[in-house]
């Protein structure tokens, strides 16, 4: 049986995590179908058809998928599920929102945040903020998985899959989308950025967070991140939160500024290739995992760093 991957997209184009999820599907092996559920999705389906390893794109183009509600996307996936051995989605706010509904309706146990595929029924996932790795085996008839993007190298282009229209499922009409407030940013997406500049409580204020970190991020072409403490204190928006309960990132370079290194923060960034920590307190746990620790007052060090780049 084939594998179904649910694409994350904004109708016009695919989100990066779709490529990592496809890589996990490739590890399982077999035909991989990519489902794009949205409204006016020719842009996203064309991109999907060109991805390596995709054997068919399923296009569910209907008004009730314009807001990609959990209820409607789940109902659609369930209507298609009979033909599949595995159903995968990114472990992002999108995938985490609807995939548990799919698993519930199929009466199977979802496996969340898969970071490694051992075999067609055995997967590795982090537990306890990444302080332990559980290898779990599923006996369910369909394996339903959310895939953590940092665990799998994104697939490239190079496919030429056919695009097939699929019928929409009935509109559940349980929710109504009243709108979105999306922060416009020229910076790269936090989940896909090569460099992340992240700030913690040590920055002291929202003003300082913006004044010190934004120019550094711009100079490096980096995404901005924040610790939970910084989000809690209102220095940064919640969608910039890196950690166990926020985003999991693994960039080439992670610069932690004024971050102490709580367990839950480390869970979100400890797989970064190179970690830099700038903090005035040499005893903070962040230094234990940093490749390059700079014990200094961030109010002096960050402007100096911007000037030196």
């Amino acid at each position, binding site marked *: 049986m084939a594998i179904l991957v649910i694409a994350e997209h904004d109708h016009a184009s695919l989100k990066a995590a779709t490529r990592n999820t496809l890589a996990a599907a490739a590890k399982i092996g077999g035909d991989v179908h990519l489902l794009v559920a949205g409204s006016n999705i020719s842009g996203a389906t064309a991109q999907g058809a060109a991805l390596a390893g995709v054997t068919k794109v399923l296009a569910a183009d209907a008004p009730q998928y314009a807001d990609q509600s959990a209820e409607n996307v789940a109902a659609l996936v369930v209507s298609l599920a009979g033909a599949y051995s595995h159903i995968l989605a990114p472990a992002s706010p999108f995938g985490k929102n609807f995939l548990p509904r*799919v698993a519930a309706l199929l*009466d199977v146990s979802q496996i969340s945040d898969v970071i490694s595929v051992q075999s067609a029924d055995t997967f590795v996932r982090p537990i306890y903020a990444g302080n332990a790795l559980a290898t779990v085996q599923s*006996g369910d008839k369909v394996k339903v998985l959310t895939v953590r993007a940092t665990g799998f190298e994104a697939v490239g282009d190079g496919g030429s899959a056919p695009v097939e229209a699929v019928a929409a499922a009935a509109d559940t009409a*349980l*929710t109504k989308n009243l709108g979105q407030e999306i922060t416009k940013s020229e910076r790269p997406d936090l989940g896909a950025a090569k460099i992340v500049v992240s700030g913690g409580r040590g920055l002291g204020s929202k003003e300082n967070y913006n004044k010190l970190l934004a120019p550094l991020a711009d100079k490096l072409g980096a995404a901005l991140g924040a610790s939970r403490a910084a989000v809690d204190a209102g220095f940064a928006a919640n969608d910039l939160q890196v950690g166990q*309960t926020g985003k999991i990132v693994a960039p080439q*370079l992670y610069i932690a500024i004024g971050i102490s290194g709580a367990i839950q923060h480390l869970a979100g960034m400890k797989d970064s290739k190179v970690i830099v920590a700038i903090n005035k307190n040499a005893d903070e746990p962040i230094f234990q995992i940093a490749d390059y620790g700079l014990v200094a007052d961030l109010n002096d060090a960050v402007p100096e760093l911007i000037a030196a780049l």
Partner: protein
Amino acid sequence: MKVLVPVKRVIDKDVRVRVKADETGVDLANVKTGLNPFDEIAIEEAVRLKEKGVATEVVVVSAGAAVNQDVLRTALAVGADRAILVDAGDVELQPLAVAKLLKAVADKEAPQLIITGKQAIDDDAGQVGQTLAALLGWGQAAFASKVEIAGGAAKVTREIDGGLEILEVKLPAVVTADLRLNEPRYPKLPDVMKAKKKPLDTTTPAELGVDVTPRLKTLKVSEPPKRQGGGKVADVADLVNKLKNEAKVI
């Protein structure tokens, strides 16, 4: 309006767990435990709805061993009216089983709103709220940062990638609490005393007619690869030099 708040007892967020030498699990002996932090936020939201006169009763429910009574008492101390313990003994409860138990409780209690944490910080599965909503055939609003009830619906602001989404969900519905929904209060000592007298009923998976047999088998639990850190640089110039010439990342 009755609000049901499912809660979980988890290890304290600042405890760093150790993997057992035989790789069968993590060592939880003598580890500090308490309410899952996101469930504390869920309780707080429910209690605030009651204080505003929107909710009439707040019922907390937890599934697990009898020791879970302690987190239910904490929830009662911060303002929940009544508690239900689903005593499953020592059986491992996976998220699907928990959602089925909660569905059975919800069928009996008939709440208009269920609020729970978006994720438990032990297994990090993040499934129960959405799974429960689907089993009940209800709408959901996951990762909520603001909840308003009006006209038979919940207007919920949700945390999504890149910003916020505003969703209107028909009641009854399930809402899962994210970090910024509110700041939970601490229980006051007199309230802790009073909570001891609040009703706490016990039921079992068998009484609820739910099969809780685990579907997933844990083959092993291992240590993640250790990161070699601890390197220091002398100053900013040294840092820039090393990033350029040693790590070659800028």
